[in-house]
């Protein structure tokens, strides 16, 4: 039986992510559709000016949960390969927090698989972000 994590590349990184590395992992002669999602740090949240964000992860479990999502996407959408890379540490405005790259024979599963991965990541992967503003900081999503 094939390795269950075949064609899956999950990384949690304290240094800058590379779209090229993700593309190189998923590109394949059998695939006519590559789809990418890149999440970047924006300067405004709910009308307030953000100076930077801090990402913290429970690393071993985050990697496990990211791998579960990537494998589910590959199997359920029939993707060829999935790269899912996420940052930790302090990120400035405009920096990249997450990159998802997927490949498939045709484009529709690539679009759908890519969206599935970012939606699920936001629900289950134990990563937290602290938002810094000129007047203080707080953990996002923590309180109603």
């Amino acid at each position, binding site marked *: 039986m094939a390795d269950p994590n075949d064609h899956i590349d999950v990384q949690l990184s304290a240094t800058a992510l590379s779209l090229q590395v993700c593309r190189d992992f998923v590109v394949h002669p059998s695939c006519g559709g590559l789809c990418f999602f890149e999440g970047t740090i924006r300067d405004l949240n709910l009308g307030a000016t953000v100076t930077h964000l801090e990402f913290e*992860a429970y690393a071993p*479990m985050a990697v*496990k949960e990211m791998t579960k999502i990537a494998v589910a996407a590959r199997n359920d959408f029939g993707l060829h390969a999935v790269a899912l890379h996420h940052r930790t540490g302090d990120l400035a405005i405009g920096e990249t927090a997450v990159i998802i790259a997927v490949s498939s024979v045709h484009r529709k599963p690539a679009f759908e698989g890519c969206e599935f991965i970012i939606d699920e990541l936001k629900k*289950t992967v134990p990563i937290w972000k602290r938002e810094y503003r000129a007047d203080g900081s707080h*953990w996002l*999503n*923590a*309180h109603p």
Partner: protein
Amino acid sequence: MMKIQCFGVARDIAGGPYLTLDQLEGRSVAELRQALLRTYPAFGELVSFAIARNEEYASDEERIEAGDQLVIIPPVAGG
């Protein structure tokens, strides 16, 4: 005494990266949650919080065993 690891807002509530609770072995995850809320009422002010046991989300019915790695998972915010 068992150590429970805390991340994000849970670390702020606990006042550090770990908190300790007595007599958890054999108790359910639901009982752990109740003990946390009694000792640190601020956990009740969160949107929600989950417990991870040995790097997996734990259900309320699971029993805690000596040597378990327990972690409080406040609402996640990746991406």
